[in-house]
């Protein structure tokens, strides 16, 4: 692994615990890997407790319980309690599906700090279509219950071509539901979203219009609601500082115990991502090949290597470089300095052609059947 010798390793601050790949929803932009159905095994309660304890000891303080749908884990309350005892700030990242008032109270008593509820659109019809499950009314009821029981609430809406025109109604819905934070997450094109990109990627004009609406709203609700805006990086000319730099801050543990420097890293070739069943978090973070692979700058090719912005964006996203150029050590092609930058325009053109086509192919929904079909294709 290049350049791992003289690099100061900072401790993890963020632990994303993907408790399970099971999910009652089928969102076609899911960030889980396409082949998730091939990973059936899940860590048990004691494994998770050990992971939480070891990561906390190193300095992790923000903890996301995610998935899949974390509510499908029967030991969620027990894990939340363990996390609170350790001093984590615990975030539950949920679809809201299956979250009863009784469970909301139990989680609060166990020490859960915050609940992030996702909603797919501002109308029942579109929400239920995108989620692949009838869930709109349940989600709205859950949002009310989350506020009723005194949690800070983040409402998360993933933005794409099917719902971007609803921006004004999405903002009004967030206000009505009493969200403390609204996360407007422009789709990031990995995993399922990558497979569905032609059907999800809006045009630049659509982005700009939606962003202007969101910006005006942000000023209107200042002091009452905060807006987290995840930028649509395909329309930027510099890449995102992905994960705040590889192996500097974020640690993801997948349902089967594989430790990942980012939640898409599972798709990168040759990293040999370690499993928490075999190694301690400290060994994984400090010594593993995977976590050292892109630390520092030695691994970079040109134009990153000599670029005066490399300490700002770390060359962008490794997964995006791999998905779009075939080489994970390339500059993220979002960067206008990248010799491969043309692939971004190709993606945009391809999506536009698809939108204008009379017989657009259907969305591929995220479910086990499609996962098995797509992952056995190659």
């Amino acid at each position, binding site marked *: 692994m290049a350049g791992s010798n003289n690099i100061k390793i900072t401790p993890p601050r963020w632990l994303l615990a993907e408790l399970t790949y099971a999910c009652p929803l089928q969102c076609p932009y899911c960030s889980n890997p396409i082949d998730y159905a091939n990973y059936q095994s899940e860590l048990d309660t004691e494994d998770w407790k050990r992971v939480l304890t070891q990561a906390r*000891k190193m*300095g992790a*303080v*923000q903890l*996301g319980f995610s998935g899949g749908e974390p509510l499908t884990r029967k030991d969620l309350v027990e894990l939340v309690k363990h996390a609170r005892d350790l001093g984590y700030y615990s*975030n539950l990242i949920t679809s809201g599906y299956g979250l009863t008032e009784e469970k909301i109270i139990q989680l609060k008593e166990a020490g859960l*700090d915050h609940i*992030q509820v996702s909603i797919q659109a501002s109308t029942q019809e579109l929400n239920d279509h995108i989620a692949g499950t009838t869930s709109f009314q349940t989600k709205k009821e859950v949002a009310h219950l989350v506020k009723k029981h005194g949690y*800070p609430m983040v409402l998360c809406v993933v933005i794409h071509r099917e719902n971007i025109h609803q921006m004004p109604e999405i903002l009004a819905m967030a206000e009505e539901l009493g969200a403390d934070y609204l996360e407007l997450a422009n789709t990031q094109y990995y995993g399922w979203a990558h497979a569905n990109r032609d059907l999800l990627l809006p045009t630049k004009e659509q982005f700009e219009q939606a962003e202007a609406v969101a910006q005006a709203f942000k000023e209107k609700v200042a*002091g009452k609601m905060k807006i987290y805006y995840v930028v649509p990086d395909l329309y930027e000319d510099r890449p995102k500082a992905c994960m705040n730099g590889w192996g500097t801050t974020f640690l993801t543990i997948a349902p089967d115990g594989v430790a990942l420097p980012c939640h898409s890293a599972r798709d990168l070739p040759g990293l040999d991502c370690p499993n928490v069943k075999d190694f301690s978090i400290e060994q994984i973070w400090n010594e593993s090949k995977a976590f050292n692979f892109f630390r520092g700058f030695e691994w970079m090719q040109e134009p990153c290597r000599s670029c005066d912005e490399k300490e700002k964006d770390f060359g962008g996203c490794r997964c995006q470089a791999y998905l779009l150029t075939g080489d994970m050590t390339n500059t993220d092609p979002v960067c206008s300095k990248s010799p491969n930058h043309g692939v971004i325009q190709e993606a945009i053109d391809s999506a536009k052609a698809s939108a204008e086509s009379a017989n657009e192919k259907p969305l591929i929904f995220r479910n086990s059947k499609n996962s098995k079909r797509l992952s056995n294709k190659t």
Partner: protein
Amino acid sequence: MTINPDQIIRFSPMHRLQWEEAQQKDVILYPEGMVELNQSSAEILKLCDGTRNLAQIVSDLEEKFATSGLTNDITAFLEVALKNGWIQQH
């Protein structure tokens, strides 16, 4: 936003103030985020416990650190804290 000098100040129930051993500093935790505090900011926020108004916070800190003239600095910081939603006055 300005601090009402007569009203009691309390730390927001939507945030958590906590000492982080690994970082050797106090931090404010909130949904998916964290603010690292320097020592003086942390000392001020610890007194925002719903029992003191501005003048009482100032006098407690001036006494604790055996100094005077802290009113302007503390007021300025509390206004930032109020704007960020870390503290409340109602």
